């Protein structure tokens, strides 16, 4: 074998070795365009990832799902726990510490000797000589006592946020003693950890004294021992316990708004995701059958769709609620879901029918039919998967619609009602205290808007990524 090339080489005087006659590497391999082939969905995914708006919406959606599903494990405050000492607090990250104080019980107060009016006759009423606090002034209770004033029939107690300049500056009294010999007053009315100026004025029953005594008293944040015990905190008197922070503030019953928004997210997102999944599926089945079989069945089925679409949507959502026997003030999440499904499927059905009508004449469908495929197999194995793009887009746009519907209904009191919370019902509660503490409306409204926005932008991005017309234009 090796003899022939060596003879040749000697004749042509070219150095040829046996290696020159080894088969050349395959050229086809080299000419191949080195780009991995992409399936349709991989391509869609790449396009989606290029769309920064859509991608950030996707991240927001994932974050919302994590917030809803994982959040309650991380933020363990009970959403239903009321704290009447912390009503409508603004958002704050810092946790406050509170002193554990004795349960207030009933305070007997301080009794003084009666100074008969006769003794003091002709004199003008003076101010009390001293005003002091019994025990520790705390946000649970402030116990004031003072010295008796000659000729006083009762005393009026004022509380101010600032040092009063004169008697005219005192405002309305906080309370009054009933008898002349009661020389004490217990204040338990909406106390906050700040400095208050308490003033006491004696009155002879007709007019108030011209002079008042004022004491500046700084209150400490406190909870009573029994409250501490209820919440599983250290209940030894005088101990400082840490009260939980409220990053979103509290609502009108002192419940933690972050926990409530998380709890509400479960209801809102449950309805917002499960209802579209159900009615889109129903629409696929209905539209698929109508589109595939066509003819009179199609006409009949589409007439039904026309009728259901004509029903006034929100009115019928409410009617179904009554129809399911849910009275005002009760929340029916499952009935709301059912009503949403019953009223919303026709849009998807119409869309799927149109899509199926378009592709049912394609060669691959005919081939499958010739091979004897069962119609249902054809619809759900060949036709529906090929309309998956529009279905996905419909689903993405159906989610904000369902979330909006839930929020609207709960907002007008026809959806989820207390004690169950949803973003809509939280907004409904929040709007009542909007003037004094807007955060109670702001947070649930923000979450509704953010979710709707994210799903809308994601839907836009998906539609762009799936649109084959755009693809051919590039």
């Amino acid at each position, binding site marked *: 074998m090796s003899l022939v090339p060596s003879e040749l080489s000697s004749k042509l005087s070219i150095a040829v070795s046996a290696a020159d006659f080894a088969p050349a590497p395959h050229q086809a391999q080299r000419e191949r365009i080195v780009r991995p082939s992409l399936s349709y969905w991989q391509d869609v995914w790449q396009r989606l990832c290029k769309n920064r708006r859509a991608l950030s919406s996707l991240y927001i959606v994932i974050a919302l799902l994590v917030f809803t599903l994982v959040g309650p494990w991380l933020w363990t405050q009970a959403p239903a726990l009321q704290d009447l000492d912390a009503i409508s607090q603004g958002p704050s990250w810092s946790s406050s510490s509170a002193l554990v104080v004795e349960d207030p019980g009933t305070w007997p107060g301080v009794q003084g000797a009666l100074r008969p009016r006769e003794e003091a006759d002709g004199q003008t009423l003076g101010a009390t000589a001293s005003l002091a606090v019994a025990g520790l002034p705390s946000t649970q209770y402030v116990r004031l006592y003072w010295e008796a004033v000659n000729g006083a029939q009762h005393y009026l107690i004022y509380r101010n946020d600032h040092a009063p300049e004169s008697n005219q500056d005192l405002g309305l009294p906080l309370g009054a003693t009933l008898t002349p010999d009661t020389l004490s007053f217990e204040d338990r009315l909406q106390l906050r950890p700040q400095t208050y100026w308490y003033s006491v004025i004696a009155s002879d029953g007709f007019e108030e004294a011209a002079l008042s005594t004022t004491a500046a008293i700084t209150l400490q944040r406190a909870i009573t021992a029994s409250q501490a015990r209820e919440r599983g905190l250290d209940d030894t008197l005088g101990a400082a316990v840490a009260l939980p922070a409220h990053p979103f503030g509290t609502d009108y019953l002192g419940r933690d708004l972050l926990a409530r928004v998380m709890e509400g997210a479960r209801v809102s997102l449950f309805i917002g995701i499960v209802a579209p999944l159900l009615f889109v599926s129903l629409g696929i089945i209905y539209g698929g059958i109508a589109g595939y079989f066509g003819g009179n069945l199609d006409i009949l089925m589409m007439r039904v769709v026309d009728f259901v679409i004509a029903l006034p949507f929100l009115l019928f959502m409410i*009617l179904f609620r009554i129809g399911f026997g849910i009275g005002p003030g009760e929340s029916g999440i499952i009935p709301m879901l059912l009503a949403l499904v019953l009223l919303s499927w026709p849009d998807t059905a119409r869309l799927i029918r149109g899509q199926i009508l378009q592709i049912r004449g394609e060669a691959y469908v005919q081939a499958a039919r010739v091979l004897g495929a069962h119609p249902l197999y054809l619809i759900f194995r060949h036709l529906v998967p090929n309309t998956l793009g529009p279905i996905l887009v419909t689903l993405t746009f159906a989610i904000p619609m369902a979330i909006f519907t839930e929020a609207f209904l709960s*907002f007008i009191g026809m959806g989820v009602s207390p004690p169950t919370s949803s973003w809509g019902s939280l907004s409904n509660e929040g709007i009542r205290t909007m003037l004094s503490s807007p955060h109670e409306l702001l947070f649930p409204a923000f979450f509704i808007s953010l979710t709707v926005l994210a799903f809308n932008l994601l839907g836009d991005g998906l539609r762009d990524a799936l649109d084959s017309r755009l693809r051919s234009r590039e």
Partner: protein
Amino acid sequence: MAMLRYLLKRLGVGLFTIWFIATATFTVMHLVPGNPLANERGTNATIRANLERQYGLDKPVFEQYLIYMSNMLHGDFGIAFSEENRSVNDIIREHFPVSATLGVLSLCFATVGGVLWGALAALYRNRLPDALIMFLVILGISVPSFVFAAFSQLFILKLNQWSGRSILPVAGWEGVSSMLMPALVLGLSTMAYMTRLMRSSMLDVANTDYLRTARAKGLSPTRIFFRHQLRNAILPVITVLGPAIAIITTGGFVVESVFAIPGLGRYFVQAVAQLDYTVIMGTTVFFGAFLVLMVIAVDILYGFIDPRIRLGAV
């Protein structure tokens, strides 16, 4: 003639749809066991039987249905349960004009605003005004109307406090000034949708041959913009008027209850809270029929404006 046939056909289907709405309403309301008088307090058996006879509730369901349908054909929606001697017709006659005024006003806001902003966004395509308008559009679509309603009330309040006099009323329904804010809030989401639609429609028209021709002829840009581009781009906006009316009438529930406007939507919500069956049924059928007729009216209007549609439909 063809137009007349088309009209008759549309009206026929419309009537059939209204019948379906009435039947569906009746069915849903009779799904519940028990009857509307069951929660009346202080009625003994005799009184209740008498009341049932008066309202026809002692008859079989199908007979009740026939009575209900024949009454409705006569335009009689029955008598309210929760108020003495007040027929549902009276309630509709009193409260519907309020809702309709609010609806028409907000539809005007939405259409004018949508066309204007959309045209503007298309004119400044991919520039700052466009980005700004589209950002506001996304906001308008994503924020629920009750939030807008609440914060616009807050805004009016602060405005009044700041100016020291009442520029706009915070709530209620007296005079034009009290209608402005609710109508604006109610029309906001529709305006956002219309802006979006108008913008894309303007951009579609910008690529047409007739616009290129107009430009080639040397027409002034203003004339091209207003006479050729804008007028043709408005057509798709008209098609969404029908659904927009539906959205605005039902969206009115929320705005009416936030702004304390005595409209039919607010009355309906109250009737549901009181389980006032005749009012609920009457209002639903009335609203449904109104919407069906409105959609037909918009279709016909569209047929007049755009002859291509008319020819295609017949």
